[in-house]
């Protein structure tokens, strides 16, 4: 065949023109392929004082995960305060999920899915990010930096109080992890408390003696938190000395504020108990499936009608327990609203630390003075004002009786605030009681019997850390 040069030329010109048009009309790489994801906040947005402040706000928001409800999804959304309360005697399982029931029964397999462990320990990273940014861009904001150090210590203390011995406190560098680092070595709860105390000390050091209202608030919260960690280490006198009423008034509260109009910010206790009824406030007697079950050692929170833990019975609440209405539902009324504030620490906590100091020294009368002062002039718990109670007129004469009385009062004052599991563990560890005389024991209303766990296990998900091979022990 013969080549038609004119046609060929035309095609060449057309193709070349098309190619030129395509290549010159736009920068292909940038115009056609750039991600152009306007919803993304990328690294160009951080690196300024404003961004540092935002990272601080974000980290403190995540700190609330110990008490708030990011998912409303049952056990995996259950915060660490509630999980501890479920294993202790504050709450009982009214859900259908095995994962919930195993915690309630104190027989938790470490391959249980513990969203609360992951969320809690992950907060440490957000706080470290914020500290680094604040130190770089806003070093003058000592109250803010101190508050972040306090938050880091508080998270670590929460881990130690609720989880078994064997908690790694790892770090990462922009997502890169070095598992050979000593940070990934599992630590005992006491060691973790000691780490928390060093961070509380960092907070106190940077806040110093500043007298502005923010610094005072942060210093008070840090002092109470450090004292609480010291109590966990058995340093009762040192703890009590940190929080005298002259420093920390009984009315003081450092509150977790949730926000109904913000997704995932509901108070966890309200969600799981008041709203979707997956946990019920616990009682020592439970009528389940037509049978009566007695749980040994439990404070009968639901039937006590104590002014500090008001209860609404399930039928009045107009909602059934989530397990098809099988479990009797008792709903706490301290936090009636989804965004009622809950104290992270408070003056009540300070008084109880002082009272325990008296208990330890055998000064039961002084202990009773502190306890009765709270009863007769009850401070607020969040926005809830407990009714005035009469003083307890009988002063215990033995340490055993005083201990029982003190921890019962403490349980009622601090209901639902992440203290109870730690206190039961301390009764075993520091007061020499056996777990079967402290923790819920006996037949469980949903079948089987209570086990012997005294802490939440660090879950198997942590085993990707080669230095971790499970709890060192599950001792109290």
């Amino acid at each position, binding site marked *: 065949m013969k080549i038609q040069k004119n046609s060929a030329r035309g095609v060449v010109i057309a193709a070349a023109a098309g190619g030129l048009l395509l290549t010159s009309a736009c920068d*292909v790489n940038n115009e*056609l392929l750039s991600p152009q994801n306007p919803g993304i906040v990328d690294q160009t947005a951080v690196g300024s004082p404003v961004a540092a402040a935002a990272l601080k706000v974000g980290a403190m928001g995540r700190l609330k995960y110990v008490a708030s409800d990011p998912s409303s999804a049952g056990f995996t959304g259950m915060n660490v305060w509630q999980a501890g309360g479920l294993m202790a005697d504050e709450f009982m399982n009214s859900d259908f999920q095995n994962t919930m029931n195993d915690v309630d029964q104190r027989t938790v397999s470490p391959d249980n899915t513990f969203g609360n462990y992951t969320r809690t320990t992950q907060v440490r990273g*957000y706080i470290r990010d914020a500290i680094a940014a604040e130190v770089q861009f806003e070093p003058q904001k000592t109250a803010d930096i101190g508050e972040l150090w306090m938050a880091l210590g508080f998270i670590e203390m929460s881990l130690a109080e609720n989880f078994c011995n064997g908690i790694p406190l790892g770090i990462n560098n922009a997502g890169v992890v070095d598992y050979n680092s000593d940070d990934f070595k599992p630590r005992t709860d006491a060691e973790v408390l000691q780490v928390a105390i060093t961070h509380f000390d960092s907070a106190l050091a940077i806040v110093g003696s500043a007298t502005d209202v923010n610094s005072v608030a942060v210093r008070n919260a840090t002092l109470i938190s450090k004292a609480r960690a010291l109590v966990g280490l058995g340093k009762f006198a040192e703890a009590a000395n940190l929080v005298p009423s002259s420093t920390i008034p009984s009315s003081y509260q450092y509150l977790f504020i949730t926000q109904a109009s*913000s997704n995932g910010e509901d108070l966890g206790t309200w969600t799981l108990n008041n709203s979707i009824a997956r946990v019920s406030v616990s009682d020592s007697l439970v009528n389940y499936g037509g*049978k009566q079950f007695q749980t040994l050692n439990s404070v009968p929170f639901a039937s006590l009608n104590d002014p500090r833990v008001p209860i609404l019975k399930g039928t009045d609440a107009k*909602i059934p327990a989530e397990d098809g209405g099988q479990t009797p539902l008792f709903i706490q009324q301290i936090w009636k609203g989804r965004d009622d504030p809950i104290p992270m620490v408070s003056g009540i906590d300070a008084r109880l630390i002082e009272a325990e100091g008296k208990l330890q020294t055998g000064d039961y009368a002084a202990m009773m003075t502190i306890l009765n002062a709270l009863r007769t002039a009850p401070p607020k718990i969040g926005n809830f004002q407990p009714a005035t109670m009469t003083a307890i007129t009988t002063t215990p004469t033995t340490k055993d009786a005083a201990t029982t009385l003190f921890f019962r009062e403490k349980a009622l004052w601090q209901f639902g605030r992440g203290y109870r599991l730690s206190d039961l563990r301390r009764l075993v560890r520091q007061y020499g009681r056996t777990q079967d005389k402290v923790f819920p024991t006996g037949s469980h209303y949903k079948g089987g019997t209570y086990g012997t766990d005294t802490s939440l296990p660090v879950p198997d998900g942590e085993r*990707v850390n080669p230095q971790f091979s499970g709890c060192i022990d599950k001792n109290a």
Partner: protein
Amino acid sequence: MDFGRKSFAALAAATALLTGAARLSAQGGTITGRVMSAANNQPLAEARVLGIQTTLAATTGEDGKFTLRNVPAGTVQLQVLRVGYQSVKQTVTVTAGQTATADFTMQIAVAQLEEIVTTATGQQRKIELGNAISTLGDVGKRVETVPTHNLSDLMIGKSPGVTLLPGTELGGAPTVRIRGVSSISLSNAPIWVVDGVRYSSGSLSSGTDVNFSLLNSLNPEEIEDIEIVKGPSAATLYGTNAANGVVVITTKKGRSGSTRWNWSAEGRTVSDRVDYQDMYANFGKDTKTGVVTRCQLATMTTSAFAGACNSDSVTHYNYMKDPDRTFVHLGHGNLFGGNVSGGNDAVRFFASGDLDNETGPLQMQGFELARFDSAHVPVRDEWYHPEAQQRASFRGNLSATLSPKFDLNISTGFSKLNNRIPPESDLIISLYYVGMQNYGYKGCPTGKFPCGLDKDPFQADGVPLNDALQWSPGDIMQVTQNSDVQRFTGSATGSWRPIHWMQNEATVGVDLAAIDFFQLCRLTECPPQSATAKQGRVTDNQSKSRNFSAKLASTSTWNPLQWMNLKTSLGADYTNLEDDFARTNGTTLPPGASTVASATTRNGSQQQPTAVKTLGLYVQEQAGIRDRLFLTAAIRTDQNSAFGSNFQKVYYPKVSTSWLMSDESFFPQYSWLQSFRLRAAYGASGVQPGATQGLITFTPANVALTGRNSTAEVGASGLTASQPGNANLKPERSAEFEGGFDSQLLNKVHLEYTFWNKKTTDALVNITLAPSSAASQLSPLLNVGSTQGWGHELQTNIQLLDRRSLGWDMTVSASHFSNKVVSLGSVSGLCQTSPNDPSITPVIVACLRSGSGSTSGEARQIPGHPINEQWYRGYTYGDANGDGVLQISEVKVDSGFSNFGYKVPRDIISIQNGFDLFNRRVRVQALFDYKGGASILDGANNFQCNTGPYACRDTQDPTAPLDRQAAAIAKTFGTLVGNTTYKSSAGYFRSNQFWKFREFSVTAQLPHAVTSRLRAQNGSSLVFGARNLHTWSNWTGIDPEANYGLTQSESQNEFQTTGLPTYFTLRLNLKY
């Protein structure tokens, strides 16, 4: 980096080079002709007429006529192809400026060897391809003769190697997997292309656990052809994201000839024929207190358990089948549609409109209607019939021959899909939950709580439950849920043939979808499942999907030697897939209000918009030797916006060969073997990571601060790190070899066999980091793994009888696949290689686990084991005392996990029979299909036996088989070792193999007397059809095919949902 600039320049230069180097023809001539069927001497429409070794192509019109213009002077060999007919060839001599005539007569055949398929470079003869491509040709005829309401109905059981799990709900999303799964952490779904445009096929979250599919907005009535490109060896030129296969859909086009009208009307019934199981109540007395109580088999005689029980009697009850109680009734539907097509050689058109309505089997019970009536609450239709769907679809396609050298095809489709989603399959408020999980007895002897054993006759707010559990069905039906989709898909394709040996094709198109999910409980409506539920709540989620596709392809052919034809293709394509999503919800509504704006508390969040863009360039060279041996080599390179910043482009090569050996002179001639073709192909393709997974990102949040001053700092703007980014992120790369043969035997049998082996490297894996690392992203995506899959596919078409009075044809498809994790890499410090379960040392458990380990199974990725293999704790049991009832102590649950195998069906078989009766005026078709080789969780029994009121047979009926009792004990009570209770759901992870009578239809051509009275034409028909008639299976749950909860880990599950409905249809097709 100026990759794109250089590549386009190269493309232009290469095109110019080719063009300049090639020979050009003189002025051409024209060929016209007609194609007739030898069977009835009628014109054959839709036959494809091709000039062999040229780019010449035409399609016959209704009158069987075709025209080829611009044919170079000289000799050209024409070949005519049509589904269901043997191809024919004819040599024609063309003189410049003259018109030559070529008429053809075609014989009926079962062979499909000579079909035309749509490939990335354009239409090609199937014989030229080294790959197996399944074609569902003549879709229009299938839709007319078999009840077909969505793509699932159309595709299921039709193609070997394609696993399709249809959605069980009305409008539910099907799950489509081609040749199994290969990705550990990315989607294993194929991509869809409609008329050259990338078509969004994702699922819509409904707010319950039932997902709805965007695929349902495509009306089968509009489809002409579906081709399934099965793997990377065939999908190379589709580039990144095609590794899981490509489904190529072509919609109907107009044909030249007189204008033809087709009208269809269909009525159907929709019935739920699931054999719902009875629930049981074991009445007894507490041995200590004498109180009437529900005995549990496992603890009746265990004195250690409080309140051991003396059993008196056992009752059983089935709420779902009780006509006084059930909400399951007969649903119905109808379809009205029409299309018109016609035109001439210059302009052809196709236009259609269809309206399909369906109301599902769910219906409010009479006692609930009476309750609302007595309360003066008007019952809305969406409460009375909570399950419904309406689809309106319109299509207008235009084909124009603007000049002998230029054709233009315009394809436009609009659909409006409205789903009324029933509140079911949701754990909180589900119709099936409250009906299936009842107490095992009817009525309420004492009339107040507790009544009977343990029944609460009233909802928490005093509403009578009428034997339902927890929530009244009427209140549940008040939950109004709608999912609405409006969608436009359009494309324009220009085909320019400047010279007879060159064809250039350009396509641009868009797929635009606006999706709205709406959920509403007005004030005082819906169950009181939370403290705020009765205060009213509304959710309005709106999302938009915008796809833009552009494609350029140029194919040139030339004959360097007389016996050799070369075909060179250059191409470029660009896709931009954009999505955005806006979510709003509100609570506490005033009376009558139904909008978020009217809510007292309003939440709003905007999910980040995403955009994924791909620019690909390719070149392909194909050599055809004597039109019987075809060799193809190609390479494609892609750049993609989702790749990490350090990774710029990826190359995908491809080679294939197809050899029609039976046409060779040396090939032995056997009377029983009419044709034999060998084929083999190797090719690579990829799967891209998510749009933003390579980026460093932060999450914004408005949070209430901690109150250090006892004063809330509400609504402060915060940031937290979200993901650290991965600059080295690149696509997962799959390379596949496939080989096989096609043959024609005994003039009656067409047989195809394919073996394939696919290896995936750079597999993207969500590595798990230790939580203690406090990393912002604990499961970053890394290219660290590799996987392998392999399998066999067989398809045969047999014409068993071919008499004038009786015909019998059969199609059998079968496929089997296996896969395994090959490696999970060795990224130091990221992914541990020591076991995290002592029971399975020393294998690598790696970091990939999902699911709650205490009872549920978990998908583990272990080298040497199947992808997503399911692991459970095993258990043993024995009835030591021989009383027929197992106690807790008689079941021993292992502390370690064991592997329980695949979760996606591996063995797929389908058998389709067709009978032509009464001189082919009546055709009867029946399709049976099988799925097996895997197990899924019987989620309903797993749940019901483990939660209140514990009324499943396994826990209540002393005659229940021991294996079922053991399953319940292992799940509920487990075995205490030390202080850890080990439980297992393994007993409910059961084989779901089944045979299903999937389709049945009887198509009767309307007698001439009838058609003449209706003034209709021959071919008008009346069709009786049925779908999902019967299932044969040992499955203990509801439906072994349920794809409830199917996630990335392919965790097919079934949970208190329903099965596929049974359809009976009557359809009238009238042709004018």
